[in-house]
């Protein structure tokens, strides 16, 4: 179905170097690789969103003229794409989005299109309401609507770019089942992902991209460990688990009846010194508010204690001084000052490093070099702007700054590895474990169950702003997260 070998440069940097992708018709083909490997760029070229700088592309055996290959041509050739962040205009309904850029005449005939969309959705097992405005849809439903729309446009090849990043475990299972069914019915699927569990569940074949090149292609029986090795180019060592603290270990972080508006309703939670506690839940069930409340960034009810000291009435600075480290969920909004240098970001707000008034530049430089070495920040350049770093390296800066605070007692890490590649994930997890070993209580809030399962001693589940239970394995957690467990 697809035979591609594509090259793409951004500025002087080659993000794709004759990257090969061969996809058999009617198969589910997974495209895996670390962040920045070029996965998204490759599929965007195939779908006509990004123009290639060189190489060859054949769709269904027909050689494509890359200079004329754009979204309109790709759509006409039967290529649909569902992008990472959704492409629907939020204020328009699903059906209006479906005709956007397709309808030629001045008069919109929406009703027949809506009927066709609804019917098609029923048939392929993706029921949708075509009249709902896109921004009123939950993420999973919006994604279903985009898939149905692509099929409605006659897609024979459907590209999905990290479709499961925003879904709850149950929704993921549903989506993967749908993809298999579509493939059986003759649609070719290209699935971009970095979650190898999904690859094993659904893919017929896998292409591994690393640094802009296709380094491996597997088909048939897929061995996850082999794929992972191809992705990172090296074996990832099995991390040593942190021993659980004794029951009488001193409390590091205590929440007593912590509530934030309607989003968080009286949460009780305690993390002991040396303990790693996970908070699981589908996004939007109060995780964000819990993190903000503990950090003192949102007005909250109830009490928060750090290392035994009640900080409920204190501003963020005092909480940090009491021994808290806070890793906000979004490194771009709250974690980093993107237009400042690596060194300035590492020292941001760290008066213990900069000095109280006059900045001790030698000390800042030394401190930055230490953090860069500790977390293997690349490039190892303390003068580079944070904006120029990859997501994983940016996250290392936040982790490096926060976890190196003196007299660290409690860590709140919200989505510490969201959108971060495998190598960086390993570094960040090591650092969180090291903090626990050194005696801090670590609270990890994550939408990624695998992360919580490998890191934590104990996982609690937030649902609609309440802790609804504790569980230790995937199925039970999934049931708690969706409210299926009673």
């Amino acid at each position, binding site marked *: 179905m697809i035979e591609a070998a594509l090259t793409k440069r*951004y*500025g*002087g940097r080659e993000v794709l170097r004759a990257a090969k992708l061969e996809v058999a018709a009617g198969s589910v083909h997974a495209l895996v690789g670390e962040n920045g490997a070029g996965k998204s760029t490759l599929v965007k070229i195939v779908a006509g969103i990004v123009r290639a700088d060189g190489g060859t592309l054949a769709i269904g055996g027909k050689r494509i003229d890359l200079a004329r290959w754009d979204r309109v041509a790709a759509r006409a050739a039967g290529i649909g794409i569902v992008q990472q962040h959704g492409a629907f205009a939020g204020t328009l309904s699903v059906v209006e989005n479906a005709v956007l850029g397709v309808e030629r005449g001045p008069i919109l005939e929406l009703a027949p299109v809506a009927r066709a969309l609804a019917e098609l959705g029923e048939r392929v097992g993706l029921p949708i309401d075509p009249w709902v405005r896109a921004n009123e849809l939950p993420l999973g439903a919006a994604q279903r609507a985009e898939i149905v729309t692509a099929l409605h446009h006659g897609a024979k090849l459907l590209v999905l770019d990290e479709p499961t990043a925003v879904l709850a475990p149950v929704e993921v299972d549903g989506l993967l089942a749908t993809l298999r069914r579509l493939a059986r019915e003759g649609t070719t699927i290209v699935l971009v992902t970095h979650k190898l569990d999904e690859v094993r569940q659904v893919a017929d074949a896998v292409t591994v991209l690393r640094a802009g090149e296709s380094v491996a292609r597997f088909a048939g029986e897929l061995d996850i460990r082999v794929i992972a090795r191809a992705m990172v180019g090296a074996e990832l060592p099995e991390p040593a688990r942190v021993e659980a603290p004794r029951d009488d270990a001193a409390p590091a972080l205590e929440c007593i009846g912590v509530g934030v508006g309607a989003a968080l309703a009286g949460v009780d939670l305690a993390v002991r010194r040396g303990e790693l506690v996970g908070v699981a839940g589908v996004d939007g069930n109060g995780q964000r508010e819990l993190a903000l409340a503990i*950090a003192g*960034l949102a007005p909250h009810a109830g009490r928060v204690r750090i290392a035994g000291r009640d900080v409920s009435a204190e*501003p*963020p*600075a*005092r*909480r*940090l*001084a009491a021994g808290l480290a*806070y890793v*906000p969920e979004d490194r771009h*909004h*709250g*974690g*980093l*000052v*993107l*237009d*400042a240098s690596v060194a*300035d970001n590492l*020292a*941001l*707000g*760290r*008066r213990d490093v*900069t*000095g*109280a*008034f*006059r*900045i001790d*530049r030698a000390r800042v430089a030394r401190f930055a070099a230490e953090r860069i070495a500790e977390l293997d920040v690349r490039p190892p350049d303390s003068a580079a702007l944070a904006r120029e770093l990859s997501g994983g390296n940016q996250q290392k800066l936040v982790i490096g*700054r926060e976890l190196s605070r003196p007299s660290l007692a409690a860590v709140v890490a919200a989505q510490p590895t969201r959108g971060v590649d495998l190598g960086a994930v390993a570094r960040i997890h090591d650092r969180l474990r090291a903090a626990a070993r050194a005696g801090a209580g670590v609270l990890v809030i994550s939408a990624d169950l695998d992360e919580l399962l490998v890191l934590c001693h104990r996982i609690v589940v937030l649902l609609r702003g309440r802790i609804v239970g504790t569980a230790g394995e995937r199925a039970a957690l999934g049931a708690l997260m969706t409210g299926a467990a009673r």
Partner: protein
Amino acid sequence: MKRELEAAAIALLASLAVGSLLVLAAGQSPGHVWWQMLVRTCSSEYDLGQLLYKATALTFTGLGVALALDAGLFNIGAEGQLAAGVLACAMVGTALPEGTPAIVAIPACALAAAAAGGAIGALIGALRVARGAHEVITSIMLNAIVAGIALWIGNQYVFANGTTTGRAIAPGAQLPGLGLGGSAANAALVLALAVAGAMWWLRARTTWGQAWRAVGSDREAARSVGIAVSRVQVLVMTGSGALCGLAATSFVLGHKHAYEQGLGTGTGFLGISAALLGRVHPVGVVAAALVLGFLSSGGLAVGDLVPKELTEMLQGVVVLAIAAAVPIVRRAP
């Protein structure tokens, strides 16, 4: 840094191009007019002095606006803060006993100017922090209010009978002129440069600068590392107002030695241009103040060739060009 320079250079070249069209429209040869502007300004001590006089006040207001911009706040109330500074500076200057030594009188007047401007800045900051009132709205409204109050105070207490001029300030409070062909250039220039240097140091080398720039770049990040964002915003607006108020030292202490209705008018708004053209950097602001000073001083020097409105238009063109040039430079890899 390089990009900032590129942006400013592109903006100036673009302004030159647009200015050339304006000159053509006025029926003159652009090359001749630009050359004359340069030659006449540089060859006349008086014109050079006037350039420095304009640049002195612009440095103060430019630094004030730049400080706020650096912290993510747009202080377009520089005009009002300057007006308050001028009035306070002159009132303290006239209230001082005749024999007050310079060492007391000058700081007292400068402090009064800074305090008056700072108080207005603080009010804007406090409204922003406490009530969420946008500083652009409050600062521009306060411009009108301050102008009204200043006029009322002037009429009630300051102006000599039937005039719009107050009594002269104490001799000790007067800053010496720089000579320069009888121009208005005065020692406030030294103060302006010192303040610019201090701003550079604070901004680049201290935790204060680190904090206000963090607040300007990403409020959330600043909050999450424990910076008290509200306090920084109020302090920055206070400082911004104080810097704008300090421009009074050049007008009152350095040149007029008395309060005059409308003294310094326009310097506040032009300070916004200086801050934008200087790309918010203290050194850039000084350079921008010189460029803008050259445009207005040089414009007068070639007054026989082109209408004087041309220079005012040019100053507007420069601001438009800088606003347009920044995205061009940003987009480049």
